[in-house]
């Protein structure tokens, strides 16, 4: 009997030992020093000046939660931004790849459980996710006015910075990058690009079964449908529309009619739609589709350079314009290191970093060109956008605002009921 108990204890000790060495091998003690500095720096971050924030954040770790499916961006955050933060401010950046739904569910779990030294510091967010997070008091703020780069380099009055899907930001988010919907086609396959919805219908008829869009609520599919609605119904009426299903349905009916007319010529005759924009991307690259669409306005040149797209691939817009939005950085309400997060967000808005993002990833910059010095302007001017892109001034001149965030899910619901398979 005694031997058996001994054996059990031994087995238990082995298991615990394994777990312990897994844990010590993994954490590298990061967590502990993050806690220490986190506590000291989150105390009264509201009352500190930016210099005091910088001082408080020294030696701490900032976690940055956001979508992690873009290798180029991941690499840039790890190899350019993180070393830069370490060198300039002695802040360690830790990138955590996670979809926004999961970030918010983790955050709400932590807040419900009363965790005050939360694990999430910075969050990459926008649109309805921002609205619901802010309304549920899951975000820290207002904080952007404190950041010198925000005041100095960003057009604080522009709607790209004050509104997120028509929802007032009130200083709870700082701009990270701009996006704009563009469509993509290969000029060697389809020389004529549709300039409006009528031409798009013709285009679909001529390429029967080779045109489609991602099923809503995919981000890109959703913006495509909103863009069609803008084309047909105009966009002004939506900017202050109530999120009432009947009202919205009545307003978008002509667009729904159009989408139903489009269905028979689409891939799989519009009975089903690809599940996500990434699937559509791949189908386009494989030649299964002749039309692609993306929020990543200048991404085409990157894909041509990689060889994913052919040299003759070209992005284009409707004549009346396409929807653009801004994506933002926010701070979790229970972040353990608000000071560090603010320093990092401030750095992300600096002209040098924004110019580097523009150069390496072709992300539309958020800084106001007119507020820059000549030297800084040059850094942006010399960026070669590569092949297949719409010139930036043309792109931005045809930029339409997003609809109010709360209309987006309503439209997605209506689309599901009234368009799919009809």
């Amino acid at each position, binding site marked *: *009997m005694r*031997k058996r108990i001994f054996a059990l204890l031994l087995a*238990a000790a082995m*298991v615990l030992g394994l777990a312990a060495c*897994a844990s010590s091998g*993994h954490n590298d003690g990061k967590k502990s020093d993050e806690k220490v500095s986190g506590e000291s720096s989150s105390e009264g971050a509201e009352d500190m000046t930016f210099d005091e924030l910088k001082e408080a954040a020294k030696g701490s770790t900032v976690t940055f939660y956001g*979508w*992690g499916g873009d290798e180029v961006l991941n690499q840039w955050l790890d190899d350019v931004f993180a070393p830069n933060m370490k060198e300039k401010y002695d802040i360690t950046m830790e990138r*955590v790849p996670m979809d926004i739904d999961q970030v918010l569910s983790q955050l709400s779990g932590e807040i419900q*459980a009363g965790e005050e030294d939360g694990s999430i510091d910075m969050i990459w967010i926008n649109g309805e996710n921002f609205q619901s997070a802010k309304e549920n008091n899951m975000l820290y703020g207002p904080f952007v006015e404190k950041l010198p780069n925000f005041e100095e380099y960003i057009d604080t009055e522009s709607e790209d910075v004050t509104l997120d899907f028509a929802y007032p930001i009130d200083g709870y988010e700082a701009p990270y990058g701009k996006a704009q919907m563009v469509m993509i086609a290969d000029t060697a396959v389809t020389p004529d690009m549709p300039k409006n919805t009528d031409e798009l219908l013709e285009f679909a008829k001529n390429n029967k079964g080779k045109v489609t869009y991602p099923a809503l609520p995919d981000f890109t599919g959703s913006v495509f449908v909103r863009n069609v609605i803008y084309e047909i119904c105009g966009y002004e009426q939506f900017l202050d529309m109530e999120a009432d299903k009947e009202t919205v349905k009545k307003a978008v009916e002509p667009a729904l009619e159009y989408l139903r007319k489009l269905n028979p010529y689409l891939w799989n005759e519009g009975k089903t739609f690809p599940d996500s924009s990434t699937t559509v991307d791949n189908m386009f690259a494989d030649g299964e589709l002749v039309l692609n669409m993306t929020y990543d306005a200048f991404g085409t040149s990157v894909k041509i350079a990689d060889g994913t797209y052919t040299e003759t691939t070209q992005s284009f817009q409707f004549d009346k314009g396409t929807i653009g939005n801004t994506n933002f950085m926010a701070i979790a309400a229970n972040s353990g290191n608000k000071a560090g997060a603010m320093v990092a967000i401030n750095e992300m808005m600096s002209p040098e970093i924004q110019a580097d993002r523009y150069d390496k990833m072709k992300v539309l910059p958020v800084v106001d060109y007119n507020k820059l010095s000549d030297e800084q302007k040059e850094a942006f001017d010399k960026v070669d956008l590569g092949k297949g892109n719409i010139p930036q001034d043309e792109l931005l001149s045809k930029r339409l605002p997003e609809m109010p965030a709360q209309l987006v899910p309503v439209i997605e619901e209506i689309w599901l009921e009234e368009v799919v398979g009809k």
Partner: protein
Amino acid sequence: MKKKRFAITNMILALFVLTVVLPIAVMIVWTVTERWAWPDLVPQVLSLRALSEIFRRSEALAKLFASSIMISAAVAMASVVIGTLTARALVLYEFWGKRMMYFFTVLPFMVPATVFAMGVQISFIKLGLNNTVAGVVLSHLICSLPYAVRLMMDGTAAVGDRLEEQARVLGASMGQAFFRVTFPLLVPVILSSFSMAYIVSFSQYFLTLLIGGGQVKTFTIVMVPYLQGGDRNIACAYSVIFLGITLAVFALFEKIAGRWGKNTDTEFYT
């Protein structure tokens, strides 16, 4: 007659090759492919982009693998120990509440992880277990234990306690009887439940993400965003590595188990 059976086995084998080996082969080709558009049989544009990016991060990935394997091995080890004990209790002993106990052990089979994950997360935060490796191991146990217990129950029922009693009659202590008689007989089942628990833990995404808070990084946590991101060559490169490491780990298990169980005569428990 014999020939016909041979043909059927061959067909099944061919089907297996088609459904398992072919996709893996395509996956391997995709690790160096940028564009492979219809209708060409071979990729049009090849590049080493994905592989070079992976090699660039090889140090970080090696660390990641070490910690992933550690976590999963700890989960599997704990599952086997708990599974063996639970199975013995449920199969060999009578006690009050036994059926209820049995029901509880398989409950996580019936309730999907997404349903209880949120509750687990909140409890773990209160206990201070969130964002820790111990918390992740515990949460994986919830998913792996039902498999381990089920498998160990079948094994324990097949082996029974007759031989152990025999050993006791011949003067062995309880520990000796278990470790020298029953344990070697159980090795094949232990190996199955260890592997099962390991796999369940190694491929666990949702719970690891939620309990680990993204700070406990396993290979799955890093790989899944690429699968969702649709960058096929990088996703394929990660998948090939995932597959390779898993196969290597399993080969190692087999080897270890082979040494442990070499005096096993399986006729006892078939």
